[in-house]
């Protein structure tokens, strides 16, 4: 296989990490919504934790994207 082709395939595979980020963000927002509907008075105090969890989950997916970009543009 040509190295250039392998690079492109690798970059594509690295983007699978975004699926995990999607699952994670969905879990966080879904569980927050479920909890907030059960106990609306406690929802506001947990909003910072929601944002923190969202950012942490999104970041893991973006690590995969960084790997893809490194494969495409740096290597």
């Amino acid at each position: 296989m040509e190295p250039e082709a392998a690079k492109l395939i690798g970059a594509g595979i690295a983007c699978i990490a975004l699926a995990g980020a999607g699952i994670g963000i969905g879990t966080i927002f879904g569980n927050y919504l479920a909890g907030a509907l059960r106990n609306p008075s406690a929802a506001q105090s947990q909003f910072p934790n929601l944002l923190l969890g969202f950012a942490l989950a999104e970041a893991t997916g973006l690590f995969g994207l960084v790997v893809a970009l490194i494969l495409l543009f740096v290597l």
Partner: protein
Amino acid sequence: MASSGHNGDNHGAGSFPADPMHQFEIKRLIDIDIGGLDISFTNSSLFMFIAVAIISLTTIFSVRKNSIVPNRLQSIVEMSYEFVADMVRQNVGSQGKNYFPFIFTIFMFVLFLNMLGMIPYGFTVTSHIAVTFAMAMLIFIGVTIIGFLKHGLGFFGFFVPKGVPIFMLPLLVIIEVISYFTRPISLSVRLFANMMAGHTMLKVFSGFVILMGFLGGWLPLAVMVAFTGLEILIAFLQAYVFAILTCIYLNDALHMH
């Protein structure tokens, strides 16, 4: 980014109207070279100066004429102060008061750099790993020094989790040490990757607007408007996360679990 020379080669990006990586290019505005050390004044430094100037000027001028009923500028500054003060109080506790100026500086600096990047033709300083890694490394080393000053050699006890069976301990200590040393990497890559991915995505969609022409281009344009709103949210959120993780690391160093 090493992408500037990649326009014409076989990536297939040559036909695309907007090179998504071009916006991250660092341009030298004033060449400064001291003994082989390149410390040129670049567009990156320019935007850092603008951010620092805006933050300092607004905070200084807004509290010059203090009033009990604040005017608009004063209330913005008071709100941001309260926001960060609450964050430090909740995550570090009363001992965190000493470190409030540092957290406030970090938060405002990252927030303004992110927001300046959202202005058209602006440059996103935080989309470079060099900048974010330097900040994360500064936080990491500073926090570690605080931990050792506070607890002495007892700070090594941070790596030994409590209440685990003795035969599991060697493995867990190794994992704790590794996870401690990946903190600056994850902290810097999170900010850098979010900023770079977001701006690349905006640029790719702006390319779609041009490619699809006058009739079809309205759909990606609408998506782009929505994404711009999302990016402004992300710009704030990443500054918030950067500051709150600094608080959490500081809390670990001060209170050790």
